[in-house]
């Protein structure tokens, strides 16, 4: 018998979904049951993540645990090295938690192609394709959060783009092609810039067969501040595009508006966190001097993101674009907390990544339910939906309140900690960031007002209806499947809001060690 620690949990969680995806796609009879099969696989991965978490040593949460190391391309110093500290574990759990939710949400989301709406085979193929892509993405997400080798991380970082590219480009809305290409161009540009930096790192570690292991790269350019700064910059740009920060955010609203709600959930809820995750896990330990040097500027950019994202969210008519811009604002808070350099702000940023994941998932999915019914993402085509679909309205408001950081829901504690921790070192930026609190109330409540309140009349599907005809009364409220998948998300939102202590315990020592890097540099 082996103990919990001996089993290569992370490797299994990477391999199982990827292999399952390939099998589902290649073994044609399986395509018919792709959806339940995919759900089972994702639940197995979630189960594995939970079991693994129970074996995690909280007392050493700042240490990398569940490590698996194997030599890979020794000539380049590249190894297969996976493992997680408290933050990595939290992110893996988030990814594993959201994938089954998304698969259930997308149960009926994937439709037959427009060219052959009645083609049952094509429908099955598309459904199987969707499930396979999501499973591949799951494996890559686990890999990217667990990678302890810089090159391995880079590969996962780039490889993730392709399933997302196809998820947007094949299953999205009318402008999906343009949106998916925009996404790819932005991401590849970031990746390419990072590659330049990566090559410089290669030259530095030349000859060491394990040179690219993150543990061996700590402060790799200690003796050369100029090189350090430029390499730092290449990585930072890639992560800022991913995060996304103003002004390299413009791909996100388009992608979120065109992708299916499930894809948007994974994209914004998990994938974008790779940017902020890497800022903590890679930028700070590898380039401590440059990070400290750039921190004041980055904090300004973060505050700009908070306010700019909030104002843009207020100005949107498209519900999905609105949610995307709220995330730009929220990512501003996360980045602000990372570079403030205090433990309070850092732990705030870390739990923010989780909280934002579940909140934004709820928002995207519920908005998706609405759009499925009303066939429009334009808020102006709705009115009085609270009277028509009260449960949908209530759940949207609930998720929205979490997004506007109402105490008791998941959004509050992270934002609070980031604000307290940032003010400690930079009062002006802390106070400026507080404006985000009013903006968030505005964008959420304005959206609620436009869609859910007012008289039950108006337009559906962009076609003018005869005055006063209560068309939308016929729109159905949430069905059992939709309610059921919101239950775990809702519970997570309440849990993170009311009793975040266990999660904070998991993250505190990690936050301490990373915040200390910036503090002492």
């Amino acid at each position, binding site marked *: 018998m082996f103990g919990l620690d001996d089993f290569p949990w992370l490797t299994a969680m990477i391999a199982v979904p990827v292999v399952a995806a390939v099998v589902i796609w290649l073994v044609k009879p399986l395509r018919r049951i792709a959806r339940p099969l995919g759900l089972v696989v994702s639940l197995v991965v979630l189960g594995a993540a939970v079991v693994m978490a129970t074996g995690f040593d909280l007392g050493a949460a700042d240490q990398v645990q569940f490590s698996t190391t194997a030599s890979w391309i020794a000539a380049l110093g590249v190894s297969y090295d996976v493992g997680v500290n408290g933050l990595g574990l939290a992110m893996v759990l988030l990814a594993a938690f959201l994938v089954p939710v998304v698969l259930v949400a997308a149960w009926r989301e994937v439709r037959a192609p427009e060219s052959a709406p009645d083609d049952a085979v094509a429908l099955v193929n598309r459904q199987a394709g969707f499930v396979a892509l999501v499973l591949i993405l799951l494996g890559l997400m686990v890999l990217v959060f667990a990678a302890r080798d810089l090159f391995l991380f880079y590969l996962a970082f780039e490889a993730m783009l392709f399933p997302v590219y196809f998820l947007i480009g094949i299953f999205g809305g009318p402008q999906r092609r343009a949106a998916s290409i925009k996404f790819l161009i932005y991401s590849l540009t970031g990746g390419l810039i990072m590659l330049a930096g990566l090559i410089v790192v290669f030259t530095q570690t030349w000859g060491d067969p394990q040179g690219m292991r993150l543990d061996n790269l700590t402060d790799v350019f200690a003796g050369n501040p100029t090189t350090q700064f430029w390499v730092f910059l290449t990585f930072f740009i890639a992560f800022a595009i991913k995060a996304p920060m103003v002004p390299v955010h413009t791909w996100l609203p388009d992608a979120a508006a065109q992708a299916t709600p499930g894809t948007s959930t994974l994209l914004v809820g998990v994938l974008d966190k790779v940017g902020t995750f890497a800022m903590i896990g890679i930028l700070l330990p590898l380039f401590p001097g440059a990070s400290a040097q750039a921190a004041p500027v980055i904090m300004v950019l973060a505050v700009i993101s908070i306010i700019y994202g909030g104002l843009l969210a207020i100005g949107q008519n498209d519900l999905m674009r609105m949610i995307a811009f709220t995330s730009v604002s929220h990512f501003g808070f996360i980045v602000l907390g990372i570079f403030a350099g205090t433990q309070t702000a850092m732990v705030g940023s870390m739990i923010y990544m989780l909280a934002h994941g579940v909140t934004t998932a709820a928002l995207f999915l519920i908005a998706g339910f609405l759009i499925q019914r009303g066939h429009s993402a334009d808020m102006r085509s709705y009115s009085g939906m609270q009277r028509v679909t009260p449960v949908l309205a209530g759940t949207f408001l609930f998720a929205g309140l979490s997004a506007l950081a109402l105490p008791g829901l998941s959004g509050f504690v992270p934002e*609070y900690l980031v604000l307290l921790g940032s003010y400690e070192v930079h009062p002006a930026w802390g106070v400026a960031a507080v404006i985000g609190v009013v903006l968030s109330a505005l964008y959420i409540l304005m959206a609620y007002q436009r869609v859910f309140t007012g008289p039950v009349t108006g337009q559906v599907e962009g076609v003018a209806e005869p005055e006063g005809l209560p068309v939308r009364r016929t729109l159905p409220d949430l069905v059992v499947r939709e309610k059921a998948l919101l239950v775990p998300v809702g519970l997570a939102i309440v849990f993170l809001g009311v009793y975040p202590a266990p999660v904070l315990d998991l993250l505190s020592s990690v936050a301490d060690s990373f915040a200390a890097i910036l503090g002492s540099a």
Partner: protein
Amino acid sequence: MDTVNLAWLLVAIPLASATLLLLLGRASDRWGHWLGLLSSAVPAVLAIVILAEMLGVSDGERSVRVHMFDWITAGDFTVRAGLLVDPLSITFALLITVVGTLIHLYSVGYMAQDPDRRRFFAYLNLFVASMLVLVLGDSFALLFVGWEGVGLASYLLIGFWNQRSDYAVAAKKAFIMNRVGDMGMLVAMMAMFATFGSVDYETVFNAVPGTNEGVLTVIGLVLLLAACGKSAQVPLQAWLGDAMAGPTPVSALIHAATMVTAGVYLIVRSGAIFEAAPAAQLVVVIVGAVTLLFGAIVGTSKDDIKKALAASTMSQIGYMVLAAGLGPVGYAFAIFHLVTHGFFKAGLFLGAGSVMHAMNDDVNMRQFGALRTVMKVTWVTFALGWLAILGVPPFSGFWSKDLIIEAAFSGTGWQPWVFGGAALLGAGITALYMSRLYFMTFHGKARWHLPAQQGPGPERDPKEVGWTMTVPMIILAAGSVALGLVLYQGVPFLGFLESVTGTEAPDPVLPRWLLITLTMVLVVLGALIAFREFAVRDVPLEAPRGSALTRAARADLYGDTINETLVMRPGQVLTRTLVATDRGAVDGAVHGVARMTGALGQSLRKLQSGYARNYAATMVIGVIVVLVLVLATRV
């Protein structure tokens, strides 16, 4: 086991009930209102038991902290979810649960015809739970939880009939303006954490002595901002009038008796900070004095019975804020007035709701008149509330308001004359607008049956309302009559509070008898003017154009206009410009950079047709080339 250790049930019971009613939905429609009522009544009983227990111990042992669980633990920053049960918080808890229970009972009748009555009770329970967290929490963080929670409940209840767009707008407006105040609360906590390393009451207040006065002044001022938002004080007053869109029991409970007084609670609770920051304290007094006159002037012009009462609430809270700004000389008086006001103003609002029921939900007092003949209970209970708010001895308001006027006249220099004068003048104007309201509604000629006033809908046939509505009105009226006297003369209520608030005897610059006489003269004068205009003479059905001041008062002294000009319109222009530039400039610039960097000199059209694949391929090839190069040079 001490009952005080069960104080968490005060919060848990209404919260559980609210959750249950919301989750069960229509399934609980039949009994939801009774569960809601019970979930307010049980905490009321519990609060009374805790009070009794507290009275059994000596002054020094009356403050008890009840630890529930660790809420936020982030390294050296900890916020415990804990309750502080002391004379101040138990006073509030009693006010909230007792008045709350009466209003729940009233709502059973008031909302009987509403298909969403169950949801209404869920929100009311949510409010009670949040408000109790606000007053019972033992740190600024917990206070903030309740603070935002009552804001949410207020939003939900103002917008309860949000199928009307203007009601939905009113709800949003209230929440946003409160959020502006909440920024103050957050900045205050940020500054506290930076200065004291904690947001816990005990730690913060103990650390105040020896802290830089400038820091404390800033903290005091941002706390005041928060208080202004929640308590509708100038300059964040503009939401309260619109908040009358909510069902009338909501106006009574949230927008008169309890939530809007949270700002007063905050200032009194943070007394240690304000006392060490005299500049901030002075601003508090100024805000209170300005608002008490502002609300009173607005109140004289309103024909909408609820908006007139709302203006009155604003003005009365102005009195409390003024008293709270005076320091230990005023704290206990502020809370005393808060309690008596909670009773008589809730009673007045319930009376107004009962009148609205009789008038097919009309609120225009110009179409009321002579209702004393058809609604005896409403009339008598309302009249008692009216006498109480006027401050006629021996009714409740007399005791509490008189003390505030005395305290306002205390001190040295110009301040007692200005602030005392404002408080005195306010008493006169209060008598004017409240008597106007009372006479227009219950006296004079009946104007509700005039044919011209019959809109669509059934003919008006005013009758007294049912027992669920009259019983709470009667109990609150009894409070309007006797509560002031009992608390002042019967039981040592002020002394009970002073173990928390400290004390200092007022030393007015004018003798006490003279102040009382002056107040009474002004009150009688105000009432007489109103009597002549609105009881003796006929009230015109259309409001006369009025003087410039009347028109300004009708427009809420242009509060909305100022906000719209200074904040809303510039904000809209900024947002629109940014939305336009985001697509044009930011996106365009990034596109431009992208085109330059990657030899993407081709047209965007080509870029969108398969270029990405080439690009990706190029990247893969690039990686391979680099790897080969690296490997080659290694040899």
